[in-house]
């Protein structure tokens, strides 16, 4: 195969995964330019001239600018790179052009990792690296000495031989924090909870099977219906969206924790927001974080990389025994002139029931008894969103129930707020850890009751108890389940999925999560002095040198092996001794001829000379040769 086809194949491989996140016109452009190059290679068409190329380049740059308003950053940069490589195909003539293209192909592989570092993607891009390496070999094989398969084999051999060294570098190369701040879009396109909630936000998130976090419990696993993972707490409602526009009010009192503690390590996937998740209610805080008055945990920086922290939580707790007036005010505010029927209903309950808890119970009973349906695809709501949900559609997802419930409570004069987060999670028995996915996203309510403080109330549980006890997949009718949540009834399939998640969690933990902290802690476990810059540098240098010395020794040993045939060495020694007597073996002289000539020159030695020669010849040519020892001994004793 001509090297240029290797190059085209490599480019196709590295560009393909990028097309998904590039502007639509890039794919056809690349394909067209690639086809043009192939046609030109076959002599069907000529390559475009300089003017056309310059025009194309300018047009593409303008299109990219129009799309992204910049040429830098991840997406615009990758688009520019892909377009320029494709255009480079049109004027690739010299060796230098080819090399630049090959190097850019490697660079695109690295750019691919910015979008996905999942195992299948890594395997795919490794294949691409193999192809690019083979391309380099094809160009290096200037006299065409290798067949296509031999080139591929050599590429694989080189990559495999590079692996051990790569591992050493990966483990020991000192990791540092980013050198400068990243462009805005560095981590775009990651799903997760947002800081606001409107109808549809959570039911959207439910569709994603992506892992939100994993939890290793060191104490017994709490039951499913108590596993509420607290996230953003939302105080303000504008008639459609729940959010926290100004910082949440401070709490007047510390939470009171009761019962047994639950200790666990939580590994949070990066979600690019500041909040951290914890089992309700955390007694400790992760490093570099603080708790707001509503017990929402906020990290100092947005979570841009996988974060692992240990926490202790108490399932039984009392939160906010005292409520400051400003907080009470905020927890009672509703948009004016909206949802009159809701206000009327809440007012009726208020006058019917004597106490706040009774109003809460009345509301939950209302959800239970009035044929409310828990569904992923609720009908659209009008401007009076809560009214139309409560009195007309009666079909909704957890955000509808939590939002309507809090509205009802506030209308009835009970301070209430929305809490979003995750609920439940599935246990992976293979790794004995809990996986909480985006599909476990949930929203519930907290009401403030005198003497009891903030109490969690989950109206969804009133409508669909299965949701909190068995998880989302059990709570929804099978026909409504998104593909990602399709129930896995087949045991081996379930087991495979669990295994795959275990592999992924280890991959995330040890490969993708191998950063500054993990490196230091791993190296410190081996030896304390390794966990310093100097230690790493010394270890790295020592291992690299040892590796190279090993390879050099191997090569030298191979050389020695080629040289030293012991029988020949002994015979050569014998010849040297004769040469000292003035009887040198001539280059063309066979051992027998030499023996005859030497015998004639020194008749006294003739028998011994012919004896040694015979031993040597037998060693070399006889089917069952005499022991090497005999020849060596005879030579050693031959001291004329």
């Amino acid at each position, binding site marked *: 195969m001509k090297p240029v086809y290797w190059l085209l194949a490599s480019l196709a491989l590295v560009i393909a995964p990028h097309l998904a996140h590039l502007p639509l016109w890039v794919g056809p452009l690349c394909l067209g330019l690639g086809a043009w190059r192939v046609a030109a290679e076959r002599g069907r068409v000529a390559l475009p001239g300089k003017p056309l190329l310059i025009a194309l380049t300018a047009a593409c740059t303008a299109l990219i600018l129009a799309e992204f308003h910049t040429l830098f950053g991840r997406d615009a940069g990758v688009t520019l790179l892909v377009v320029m490589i494709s255009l480079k195909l049109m004027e690739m003539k010299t060796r230098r052009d080819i090399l630049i293209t090959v190097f850019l192909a490697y660079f695109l592989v*690295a750019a691919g990792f910015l979008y996905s570092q999942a195992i299948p993607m890594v395997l795919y*891009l490794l294949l691409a690296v193999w192809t690019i390496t083979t391309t380099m070999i094809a160009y290096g094989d200037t006299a065409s000495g290798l067949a296509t398969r031999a080139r591929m084999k050599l590429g694989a051999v080189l990559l495999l031989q590079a692996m051990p060294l790569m591992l050493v570098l990966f483990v020991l190369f000192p990791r540092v924090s980013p050198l400068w701040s990243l462009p805005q879009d560095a981590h775009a396109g990651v799903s997760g909870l947002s800081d606001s909630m409107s109808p549809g936000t959570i039911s959207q998130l439910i569709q994603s099977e992506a892992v939100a976090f994993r939890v290793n419990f060191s104490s017994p696993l709490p039951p499913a219906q108590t596993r509420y993972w607290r996230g953003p707490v939302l105080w303000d409602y504008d008639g459609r969206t729940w959010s926290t526009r100004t910082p949440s009010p401070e709490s007047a009192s510390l939470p009171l924790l009761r019962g047994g503690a639950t200790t666990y390590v939580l590994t949070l996937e990066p979600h690019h927001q500041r909040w951290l998740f914890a089992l309700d209610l955390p007694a400790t805080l992760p490093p570099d974080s603080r708790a707001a008055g509503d017990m929402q945990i906020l990290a100092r920086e947005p979570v841009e990389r996988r974060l692992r922290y240990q926490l202790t939580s108490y399932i039984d707790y009392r939160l906010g025994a005292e409520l400051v007036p400003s907080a009470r005010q905020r927890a009672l505010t509703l948009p004016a002139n909206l949802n009159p029927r809701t206000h009327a209903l809440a007012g009726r309950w208020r006058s019917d029931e004597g106490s706040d808890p009774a109003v809460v119970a009345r509301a939950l009973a209302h959800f239970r008894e009035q044929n409310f349906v828990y569904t992923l695809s609720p009908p659209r709501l009008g401007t009076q969103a809560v009214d139309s949900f409560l009195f007309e559609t009666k079909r909704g997802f957890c955000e509808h129930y939590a939002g309507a419930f809090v509205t009802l409570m506030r209308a009835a004069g009970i301070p209430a707020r929305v809490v979003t987060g995750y609920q439940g999670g599935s246990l992976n028995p293979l790794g004995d850890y809990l996986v909480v996915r985006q599909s476990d996203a949930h929203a519930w309510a907290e009401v403030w009751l005198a003497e009891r403080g903030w109490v969690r109330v989950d109206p969804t549980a009133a409508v669909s108890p299965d949701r909190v006890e068995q998880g989302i997949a059990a709570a929804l009718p099978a026909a409504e389940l998104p593909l990602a949540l399709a129930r896995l009834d087949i045991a081996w399939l379930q087991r495979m999925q669990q295994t795959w998640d275990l592999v992924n969690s280890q991959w995330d933990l040890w490969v*993708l999560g191998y950063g500054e902290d993990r490196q230091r802690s791993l190296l410190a476990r081996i030896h304390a002095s390794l966990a310093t810059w100097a230690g790493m540098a010394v270890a790295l240098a020592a291992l690299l040198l040892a590796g190279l010395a090993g390879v050099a020794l191997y090569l030298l040993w191979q050389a020695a092996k080629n040289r030293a045939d012991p029988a020949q060495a002994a015979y050569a020694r014998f010849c040297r001794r004769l040469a000292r007597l003035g009887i040198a073996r001539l280059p063309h002289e066979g051992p027998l001829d030499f023996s005859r000539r030497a015998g004639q020159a020194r008749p006294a030695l003739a028998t011994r000379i012919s004896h040694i020669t015979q031993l040597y010849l037998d060693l070399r040519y006889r089917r069952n040769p005499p022991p090497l020892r005999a020849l060596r001994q005879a030579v050693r004793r031959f001291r004329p």
Partner: protein
Amino acid sequence: MLRPALSRPGRLLKHPAGKDSFLARLLHPSPDTAPVTLTQRRIFILPTRAGLGFALLLLLMLLGSINYGNSMGFVLTFLLASLAVVSILHTWRNLARLIVSAGSSEAVFAGQDARFRVCLDNADDYARLAIGLRTGKAVGEVVNLAPHASGCLAFAVPAPVRGRLRAPGFSLVTSFPLGLFRAWSPLDLDLHCLVYPHPAPASLPLPETAAHPGDGRPRGEGHEDFAGLRSWHPGESLRQVAWKAVAREQGMLAKQFMGGSQADTLLDWDALSDPNPESRLSRLARWVLDAESAGRRYGLRLPGVSIAADRGQAHCHRCLEALALYRP
């Protein structure tokens, strides 16, 4: 790291003062008496320009990986860096333990290019690919060697003056497999090429001196043993021209006669009056060629050298060699 600590002393100390010094002979006898095995000490290895570009690429990728905190970015960067390091060994191995010997080279006339041949023997179990020969800056021929196979590389050097031309030093180079590193081995093999004097352009007719005046055979040209036609050279007698062939538009051909009774021609240094010895040698070279192509028997006499009359390729070569190596 694979570069020998001491650069080849033979090259450094080759200048007259150091040529026969003890150190020079101890460390590296020069010139090499073929065959030469390319040992570690003889092979140098450095990155090519592409290799430097690759290093820049790796640096950019490392910076990107650090900034994006991208683990697989690190993996790729380190994998490619390791790949480059591994390729050093492969490039080195491509040249190491190659056995190089001098090949034959054919004599040329001054003013032509001398072609030297270098033979390579691969005594190992692996193939060696894309091994080139470099003189000056340019890499000339490239050869592949299968396991336990041999091959040859040739290079041309201008030969402006007569004599024995010693081939200049050259290098065997390879940057296989990835082109990121170039391994080379400077060699100074004992390669020689005989350079005949440049034949004088304008032809004077051959001198008609009998080498052996008393050989008893009648002088003159025999017309009885016509042997065929050959090309006619300026300076030959017009009587030899095959006019019938000219008429047939076959060009100027000369009739050739076997066993004819042509007189032996003596090409004598002293018969020439040109004061410049080189011009005389050129003239004699031209005559040797003319006499040979005319099918005559001719002898050569130089001060201190005398070659009896004969003809044929070997004789022609012997005469030209004498002219090439003549020291006035």
